[in-house]
């Protein structure tokens, strides 16, 4: 394939490198899976701190979101991987730093999504549950939270796609994932055109997967409305 600038797309090289890129993509997927799992756990905890009737815990929840949503993820990764070891003497593997960084940051966004989801449930639902003699926590568990599932799906799908794309940032802390793999071979063989476009297409395939899955989930949960 020849472009208008006279660059020749090297198919043989692309195909030769494809297994390496796919291996890098495997690491991207692994990172994303860890980040989603821990990010969701962090998000649930922070959301809980924010909605519970306790001013001190509300404040802590707010503080968390303020810090982790307000500092760029790239800077957070540098702090975790390069700055903190200087002070604490604890060096993390790049993978560990990457999972910690993405989960803590993603957790701040997921907490906001969950909080907004819970607060979007009509106030009358809690009142009806309480009027039937349910406790606050029973009402939350059985009445309020189940109603948030469907409305959480679109913003959560969005957030998971963001997390997946954000894993590209960890290439800067020497974590070898999809982008880093592409970078290494683009430089060593001077083939940035083939490597970065192929990497971009692989990212696109991965995010499409999320879009499709979440679209299906949304339809499935739409039955009662």
């Amino acid at each position: 394939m020849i472009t208008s600038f006279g660059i020749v797309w090297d198919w043989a090289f692309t195909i030769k490198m494809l297994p390496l890129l796919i291996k890098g993509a495997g690491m991207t997927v692994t990172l994303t899976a860890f980040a989603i799992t821990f990010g969701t756990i962090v998000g649930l905890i922070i959301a809980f701190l924010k909605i519970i009737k306790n001013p001190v815990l509300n404040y802590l929840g707010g503080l968390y979101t303020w810090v982790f949503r307000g500092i760029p993820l790239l800077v957070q990764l540098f702090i975790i991987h390069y700055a903190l070891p200087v002070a604490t003497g604890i060096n993390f593997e790049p993978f560990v730093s990457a999972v910690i960084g993405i989960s803590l940051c993603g957790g701040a966004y997921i907490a906001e999504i969950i909080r907004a989801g819970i607060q979007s449930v009509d106030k009358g639902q809690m009142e009806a549950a309480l009027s039937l003699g349910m406790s606050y926590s029973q009402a939350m568990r059985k009445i309020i939270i189940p109603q948030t599932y469907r409305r959480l799906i679109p913003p959560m799908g969005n957030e998971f796609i963001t997390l997946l794309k954000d894993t590209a940032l960890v290439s800067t802390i020497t974590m070898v994932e999809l982008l880093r793999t592409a970078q290494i071979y683009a430089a060593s063989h001077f083939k940035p055109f083939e490597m970065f476009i192929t990497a971009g297409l692989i990212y696109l395939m991965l995010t499409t997967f999320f879009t499709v899955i979440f679209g299906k989930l949304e339809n499935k949960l739409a039955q009662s409305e």
Partner: protein
Amino acid sequence: MIKVENVNKSFGTLEVLKGVNLTVAPGEVVVVIGPSGSGKSTLLRCMNYLEKINCGRIYIDGKLIGLREINGRLLEAPAREVYKMRADIGMVFQRFNLFPHMTVLENLIEAPVLVRKISKQEAAERALKLLEKVGLSDKANSYPAHLSGGQQQRVAIARALAMEPKIMLFDEPTSALDPELVGEVLAVMKDLAKEGMTMVVVTHEMGFAKEVADRVIFMDEGKIMEEGIPSQIFTNPKHPRTREFLSKIL
């Protein structure tokens, strides 16, 4: 059955209830009427402690609600006690507030199973009887969104009855309904009154008040202005505010 003593309630600087006194006897049907903003819904909501009162006392079945008295001092009761008392007080809301993620049957059995700790099977049997009573046996497996407003409100009444409450509170139960659907809900409420349920009903349905109420309360500006049997209130109101209100709506 219900005793409201000198109750005050404010939202911020707005005083909604100003020293309300009211007694409801067992089996009595009390209808509360009055212009919007008169505090009638708030009074009802205070009765099951969905709103905290600023001062005064409310006794349900002889027990103080939301508060406990220790050596003459009033303290807030633990949440657990409030939950327990609410289980005996049914409430029907203007906007139905059915649980949209559950079928009609699930709406009816959730609280009895969770709060009363009866078996799912027993709760379902009772629920089906209640649905028959409100004329909705065929809707047990429907979701609330597929029912008309009148049907939803009848389910909401059945859901409250499933807890076998001693008192039923109705907060403008027909105000959100299309006019042609009001009758079916009032019919269910009439049956309930005939069975001897203690009821407090906030409504604008004067026909219902005339026909079913043992006593009518007229509220305005956070106070009970006048109370009496329906024939007296509707034909010979004493208070000028009552006269003014009735002349506007009748």
